C-alpha cells in the first residue's frame, strides 16, 4: 500500500529530521509518522539519520599528542602576551581606518597633482613665475603680479636704470626686484628675496645663498640664483601650500598602509 517513490519529492524531509531531533509538536509528530508510514524513502531517511548520528558519536579520536598542563613559564609568557595582544588587538580594529586613510591619501595626492598640472603656472616649480612680494611699481612699467609668467624680454625694466644699478639675470631667470620709483629711491624690497634685496641696496657682497657674486665691483650686483635656490627658484606661496598638502596626503596614505600592515603582524605574533 505504499505510494510510488515519485511522491517523495513532495514530502517534507526537514520535518522528519525535526522528528528525529525531538523538535516537533504533537500535530507535526503525527504528520511525520504518517509520512514515514506511507513512503519508503521517508522511512529510509529516518533510519539513515539514526545510523549517521550513531556513527558520528563513534568517530575515532587519535590519542592526545601531548600533555596540556601549564608550566610556570607558560603563565609568565601568558602575562606578557596578554599585554601585547591587547595592544595589537586594538591596532587590528584600526584596519578599516587604515583603508580609509590610504584611500583619502591617494585621492588627495591625485587631486593635488591634477591641480598643479592644470593650474596656471602651477607645474613650473617656480620657473618663469615671478614671486614678487611687494606692490607693483609706481612707474607702471611692469606687469609683475603673483603667479604671472613674465617673458624674458620684460625682465629689462626701465625703472631699474634710474637707480643707477644694473640688474643682470642669468639663465633666463627673471629678476625679482620691484622696479624703483622715478625719484631714484631704493624700492621696497621684500625681505624674502635676498638676491633682490642685495640689488636694491647696491650691496656688493652677495653670499652664496643668494646665488650672486661676492665682491662684484662698481656697485654692480648680479643676481644669479641657481635653480632651486635663491629668490627666483623659490616657489610661489600657493605652490608652497600645494606642496605642504601633497606631503600631508602622502603622509596620511603612509600611515594608512602602516595601519593595514599591523594586524597581519599582530596575527603572525599571535600564531607564534
Amino acid at each position: 500500500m505504499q505510494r510510488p517513490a515519485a511522491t517523495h519529492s513532495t514530502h517534507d524531509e526537514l520535518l522528519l529530521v525535526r522528528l528525529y531531533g525531538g523538535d516537533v509538536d504533537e500535530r507535526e509528530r503525527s504528520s511525520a509518522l504518517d509520512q514515514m508510514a506511507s513512503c519508503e524513502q521517508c522511512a529510509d531517511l529516518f533510519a539513515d539519520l539514526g545510523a549517521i548520528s550513531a556513527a558520528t558519536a563513534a568517530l575515532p579520536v587519535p590519542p592526545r599528542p601531548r600533555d596540556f598542563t601549564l608550566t610556570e613559564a607558560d603563565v609568565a609568557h601568558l602575562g606578557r602576551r596578554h599585554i601585547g595582544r591587547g595592544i595589537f588587538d586594538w591596532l587590528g580594529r584600526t584596519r578599516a581606518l587604515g583603508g580609509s586613510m590610504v584611500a583619502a591619501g591617494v585621492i588627495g595626492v591625485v587631486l593635488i597633482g591634477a591641480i598643479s598640472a592644470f593650474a596656471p603656472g602651477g607645474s613650473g616649480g617656480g620657473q618663469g613665475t615671478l614671486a614678487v612680494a611687494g606692490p607693483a611699481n609706481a612707474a607702471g612699467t611692469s606687469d609683475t603680479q603673483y603667479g604671472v609668467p613674465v617673458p624674458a624680454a620684460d625682465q629689462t625694466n626701465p625703472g631699474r636704470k634710474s637707480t643707477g644699478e644694473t640688474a643682470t639675470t642669468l639663465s633666463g631667470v627673471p629678476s625679482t626686484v620691484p622696479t624703483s620709483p622715478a625719484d631714484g629711491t631704493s624700492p621696497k624690497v621684500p625681505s624674502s628675496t635676498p638676491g633682490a634685496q642685495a640689488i636694491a641696496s647696491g650691496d656688493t657682497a652677495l653670499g652664496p645663498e643668494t646665488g650672486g657674486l661676492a665682491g662684484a665691483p662698481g656697485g654692480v650686483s648680479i643676481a644669479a640664483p641657481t635653480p632651486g635656490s635663491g629668490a627666483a627658484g623659490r616657489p610661489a606661496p600657493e605652490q608652497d601650500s600645494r606642496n605642504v598638502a601633497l606631503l600631508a596626503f602622502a603622509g596620511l596614505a603612509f600611515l594608512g598602509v602602516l595601519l593595514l600592515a599591523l594586524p597581519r603582524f599582530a596575527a603572525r605574533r599571535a600564531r607564534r
Partner: protein
Amino acid sequence: MADERVVTDAQKAEVGRAADPGQGIDIALVSQAVGGELAAFNRLVERHQDHLFGLVYRLVPDRDQAADVVQEAFLSAYRNLGSFRGGSVKSWLSRIAVNAAMDLQRARKRRPSQPYPEFEDESWQPPAPEDFEPEHTALAGERSRVLAAALAALPFDQRNCIVLFDVDGYDYGEIARIMGISIGTVKSRIHRGRLALRRALEPVRELFRG
C-alpha cells in the same frame, strides 16, 4: 580583586550543592586556581584534556591544529578564571575550546588554501579490538573516513552544533549557551546539518546499515 573574592566564595558554596561529585571537584579546583594555585589548575587540565581534545578534533580534524586549539583554550581558561560564574566547569571549558576552534575555522575560511591534511592521511586507525575481524575493521575505517569527510564539508556552524549534540551529548540549551546563539538557531543548524550530511552520504549509505 574583590570580584575574584566574590566568585571564589560563590564557587565554594556551590561545591556543597553540586550533585555530581566530579562537578564539585572541578569547582573546588577552580576556586584554588583563582587563588593562584597553578597545580590546582593543572589538575583541572588533567581531568578534561582528553574530552576537550576529542571535541576539538572533531571540529578541527587535524591532530596538530586540534592540539594547538586545546592548548590555547586552556591558556585562555587560565587567563579568564575570574570570569567563571559557576555552573558546569566542563561546559565552560567546552565553550572556550569551541570558541578557539571557531576562531581557527574562521581563519581557515579566510585562507582556504590550507586543507585538513589528515583527511588525506589514513595512516592512523584506532587500535584493533579484541575480537579483531579484518572485514569489520576495514568497513569501520571506511565509514569513519567518509563520515569525517562529509562532516568537514559542512559549514562549520552546522558541524559544531552536530558534534556538540551527537558526540558530547549536550542539549539544545547548552549548545546555545556554549555557542552564544539562540536555541532556535541551534535547532535549525542541527536539522539542516543532518539533512546535508545524509544527502552527502546517500551514495555510500550501505556502509551505515547493519
